[in-house]
């Protein structure tokens, strides 16, 4: 019995808790991609840099607040700075749309032209970010490090295995839940939200119904900017902030969006968790689990790991390939926005 409980604690500690946090971050990122795709109809390669930008502004504001001694007690100060990060990212998105994307919209450019344009935007934003904050690691997490420490859990339960929950993980999951709830309320309950779904569903009919495409695009960028800033900040809080990582994050985020079916927000969320948990499950060393569950003597000598941790990012790609091969429209296709 204790063996089973120990296994549960072990799996929670190394797979479930980190998976929930990482999955939330991916889901928020994938939602941003999906919204832009559903309304503007292109794959936005600059989304990673948008996340990076939001996180950067949040970090800068956090530093200012920290220097003035303003904080949220046990919560990270970054939460206080996040609204400014969001506003700045929205501003960046709207400015980019005005200066760059709008022209191609009026020209009714092909999706692949948009894609190349977004690569240009990615360069520009990436350069801007590195110019402002430099290419290095930045640490900005503060407040209490843990909601629960491994040692406390062991004392509490008397188990061998500890279960640690970082506050950044808790904050991530809670924030993601709130953001997603608000987003779905907006899309399904408000007139503007519904008009966005209608536009995404059938552009011509939406025009006929008097829905203003420029307004829909405007709102789409506001949502995408918000999601990007939140996702970037949460990822930075949980791991650490480094401009370079956001280009790497692009792949798991795209994978999440496609696995769930591009253009479908519920799918994007599901996809985020599918990717996050797969990465952890495939790269987890099962040595200890097997040690608990198998009779003594049968436990393996090696780490019993399916794939080395170095290949974490490649898992998302493999899932992407499998989905593309088996069900190219994604697991939750059929319903957009």
């Amino acid at each position: 019995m204790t063996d089973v409980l120990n296994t549960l604690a072990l799996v929670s500690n190394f797979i479930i808790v980190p998976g929930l946090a990482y999955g939330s971050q991916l889901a928020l990122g994938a939602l941003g991609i999906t919204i832009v795709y559903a309304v503007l109809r292109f794959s936005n390669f600059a989304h990673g840099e948008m996340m990076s930008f939001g996180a950067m502004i949040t970090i800068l504001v956090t530093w200012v607040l920290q220097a003035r001694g303003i904080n949220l007690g046990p919560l990270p100060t970054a939460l206080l700075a996040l609204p400014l990060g969001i506003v700045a990212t929205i501003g960046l998105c709207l400015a980019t749309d005005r200066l760059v994307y709008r022209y191609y919209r009026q020209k009714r450019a092909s999706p692949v032209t948009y894609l190349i344009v977004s690569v240009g935007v990615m360069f520009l934003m990436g350069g801007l970010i590195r110019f402002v904050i430099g290419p290095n690691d930045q640490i900005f997490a503060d407040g209490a490090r843990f909601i629960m420490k491994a040692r406390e859990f062991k004392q509490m339960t008397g188990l061998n295995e500890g279960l640690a929950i970082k506050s950044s993980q808790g904050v991530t999951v809670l924030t993601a839940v709130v953001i997603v709830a608000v987003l779905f309320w907006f899309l399904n309950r408000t007139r503007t939200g519904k008009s966005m779904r209608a536009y995404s569903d059938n552009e011509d009919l939406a025009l006929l119904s008097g829905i203003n495409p420029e307004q829909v695009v405007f709102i789409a960028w506001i949502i995408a900017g918000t999601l990007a800033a939140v996702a970037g900040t949460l990822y930075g809080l949980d791991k650490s902030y480094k401009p370079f990582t956001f280009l790497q994050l692009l792949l798991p985020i795209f994978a999440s969006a496609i696995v769930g079916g591009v253009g479908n927000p519920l799918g994007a969320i599901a996809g985020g968790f599918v990717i996050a948990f797969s990465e952890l499950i495939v790269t987890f060393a099962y040595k200890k689990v097997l040690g608990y569950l198998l009779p003594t003597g049968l436990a393996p000598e090696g780490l019993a790991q399916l794939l080395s941790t170095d290949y974490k990012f490649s898992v998302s790609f493999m899932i992407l390939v499998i989905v593309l091969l088996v069900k190219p429209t994604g697991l939750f296709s059929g319903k957009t926005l």
Partner: protein
Amino acid sequence: MNNLYRNLLLFAVMLALVAVVGISQSWNVALAILNLCLISAIMTLGVNIQWGYAGLFNAGVMGFAALGGLAAVLISMPPVPAAWQAGGNGVVTGLAFGIGTVLAGIISWRKTAHLGGKRYWLTALIAVAGYTLMRWVIDPAIVAVEAVEPAKTGFLGGFGLPIMLSWLVGGAFAAGVAWLVGKVSLGLRSDYLAIATLGISEIIIYFLKNEDWLTRGVKNVNGLPRPVPYEIDLQHTVWLQNWVETYGISLIDASSIIVKLCYAGLFVAVLVVILWLSETALKSPWGRMMRAIRDNETAASAMGKNVTWRHLQVFVLGSAVVGMAGAMLTTLDGQFTPTAYQPLRFTFLIWVMVIVGGSGNNFGSVLGGFVIWFFWIEAEPIGLALMELITSGMAQDSPLRHHLLDNAAHMRLMTMGLVLLLVLRFAPRGLIPEVKR
């Protein structure tokens, strides 16, 4: 005719810019830039075959270039007998199991369509079992190989063949992987190809970084044999010593310039051959068909053209050219550094070259490769000079001034983004536009 003069002028201006660097900085620097311009031009030609001829967006240029680099290592490095003794058999057997698993998986998938849902499980079972078997065989062998003098070797080495052979092999490697990627993602929506190739290129780099038994991973492979003489040998030759004395330049400079010129000669030869082949292909009925497919896929497929197969063909060809350029790049560097492969530099920069040069025009690609590489390198000194000018009014110890000067190097990312966006907007057909035939 006007166009011809205009294009010649553009190339002349480009070469003049290189010459300006030669005169103002040094000819060594100028030739180093020129050599990389040549390699960039070849890579750009490869991407142009995919994008310009067929409209395929390949975001995995980096991976294909790295495969070329791998080929350079595997072909040219001498084998490590001790490592082969320690784990050679295990590695080869393990790889054989791996390949066997993939084949078994494919065969079972193809032959069991009648099983319905069970088919997934059967294939998955074969994959998991085969993978476990492979790991069981290969893991101890890898440990043994990597334990052989890890500081010096720790890998199996290569075949000890002339490195120039790797230029072809690199192309073949890239072609093979491109075939696999294309099989999976061509025929789907256009942006899926971009994302799939972005992914595969990352995985290739992870693989090269982590499979030490093959590539030494992040320990890098140094001292690849060269196809051209070494500077130190040149410095000992009598003719060069005499020559240097006659013209009054330093021996070291002269020798390294000669080496770079040798490389340049080789690269120019390859570039000319590939350019000639590309032009011939573009003007042939095959090229016309490719453009027809690019411009109207539906119409082309309605006329009985097998669009997916043609796309696969062109994707493999273009990737092979990129792989070749990758092998040449590693040859020029004389070392293989997996960490040096960054998507911004190896994928997206090449894309800027294609677009700025003029998609669909091979000469445009060559020019684009030259122009963008030149400014990628020179943006740093130019950016720094610009920043110094801007900040000259500030106090010497102003933190803002320091910050701006420190980060001036990142200006080049911004510059590239800006150039790409401006070209897309105001000259979407590039410096040398595609010729309408």
